[in-house]
């Protein structure tokens, strides 16, 4: 029964080995001549100004939360859409009502000014 697992173990080992070998080889073979520019974090782009951990404004989080809710609702739309041609009329209507409820939520958020990015 354990036989199939041997392949997984082999795959896991190989998966660890390949990048490991290249990293170790690189570390062993590469010439080391450090200077400050090489050791800086950014190899390209501009350096950050001020603190890296800044607070975003509250509206950003609310925007994100609304996205999460609407994003997850797709979980119900997907099975509905896949079986669409086999559904009876009232099942289609139920899906439409569901979308209308979501639209009501969106209208509420819109009217409350959450969607505006100032």
């Amino acid at each position, binding site marked *: 029964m354990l036989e199939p697992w041997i392949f997984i173990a082999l795959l896991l080992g190989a998966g660890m080995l390949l990048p490991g070998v290249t990293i170790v080889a690189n570390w062993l073979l590469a010439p080391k001549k450090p200077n400050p520019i090489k050791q800086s974090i950014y190899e390209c782009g501009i350096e950050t100004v001020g603190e890296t951990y800044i607070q975003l404004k509250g509206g950003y989080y609310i925007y994100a939360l609304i996205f999460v809710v609407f994003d997850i609702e797709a979980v119900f739309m997907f099975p509905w859409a896949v079986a669409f041609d086999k559904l009876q009329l*009232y099942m289609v209507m139920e899906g439409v009502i569901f979308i209308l*409820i979501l639209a*009501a939520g969106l*209208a*509420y958020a819109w*009217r*409350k000014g959450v969607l505006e990015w100032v």
Partner: protein
Amino acid sequence: MDWQDFLSVLPFIIVAGWATILLLVDLWIPANRKGITAGLAVLGLIAAIAAVISRFGIEREAFDGMIIVDGFSSFLQLLFLGVGVIAIAQAYDYLRRRDIERGEYYILLLYSLSGMLLMASAGDLIVVFLAVELLSIPLYVLAAFAIPKADSEESALKYFLLGAFASGFLVYGIALVFGSTGTTALSGMVAAIESAETTPILLLVGSGMILVGLGFKVAAVPFHMWTPDVYQGAPTSVTSFMAVGAKAGGFAALLRIFISALPGAAVMWMPLTMWIAALTMAWGNIAAISQTNIKRMLAYSSIAHAGYIFMALPAAATPEVAPEAVRAALFYLVTYAITNLGAWGVVLAMEKAEGSGLEIEDYSGLGKKRPALALAMALFMLSLTGIPPTVGFMGKFYLFQVVIDANLIWLALVGVVTSLISAYYYLRVIVVMYMRDGEPEVRSEALLNSTIFITAFGTFFFGILPGFLLKMINQVSLLDLFR
């Protein structure tokens, strides 16, 4: 599936649909006239009450057994809707006084109520889970309604984290029961247990976890730690609704799942529920003694009352007593709802704009200043203790009788002894009101006063003439799922 199915969930559709419509309508109601939203919300509830009454006495299963309509669900739905109407009436002036009036309050309350309605007629663990969440999530927001006040923040955060934690247990428990019985339908579970096609260990752990999850919701010991803090910190009108509605909702699920779907596994859950009931009664009442804040005192009192209602579960493990046990639990829920809404109403009347006036000491002199209000409060305290001529006495009497019928005499004894202990702290409120001098500052708001009057009248009326209520409850039974 036919149109009858939709009629079966009509009260739920009315309340949830109306809440969604109101959410949009409310956007165009000016901020100083949110009374319109409250009025419209009550209209929706009245329509739902009419819908429940119109199908009273009907027993059927809808949506392939997902929804059960029977006396139990109709009765509880009436109770929930009544609680909703009173909760809105209590909230209206309070929200203006505390300066937190927003139309969303009533809408969230409607959503929470729709969860309770769904819970009462749940016929499948999927529906039970959805109903628990629909009931709880709006309540998390309601508890946070007074943000940025620190108390409200703390209350909401604790309620949310522990509520979500409890849901985790509930879901995992349902998963294990599903694995054991091979179905989530309550009727299917009865059949599976009857034919012994189950994995007992999964069923034991699963039903234990469901008990933990719902035990959190009804605040039974040892899952009660959040209750005093949450009840104290939340705006009082929310606490009133939470203490009555959420608890009744949790018990609706407990009774339905354990008594009608898992009677075959009674050997497993009977000792558990018995100990939970005894511990809850004892700890709730003992911890309440040392409280000086009336909201905390009533919070511990609500824990203790959860213990009394919990006694119906071990009693129902004896099949002959089960129907009576369900009725006694329902009767006690009504008792608890009427009395507690009234007591919280008095607390609302005593609370000052900035949120003080909540110590029991603040009640001194109330008997002289507002005799009617003090009399109502005295009546509620007597009813919570279980002293005649109040409905609380009838409720306890009925419940203890059922417990004794089930041969659990020691449990009934624990109930009686803890009731005696509770007399100490309930009667102390009466003593403070009548025998201490003081100048309490009390509100007199028409809506609030009328809710206190109605509940006080109910407490007294059903206390001397319980016949009407009993007659109604005697027609109630859980739909027999095993056919």
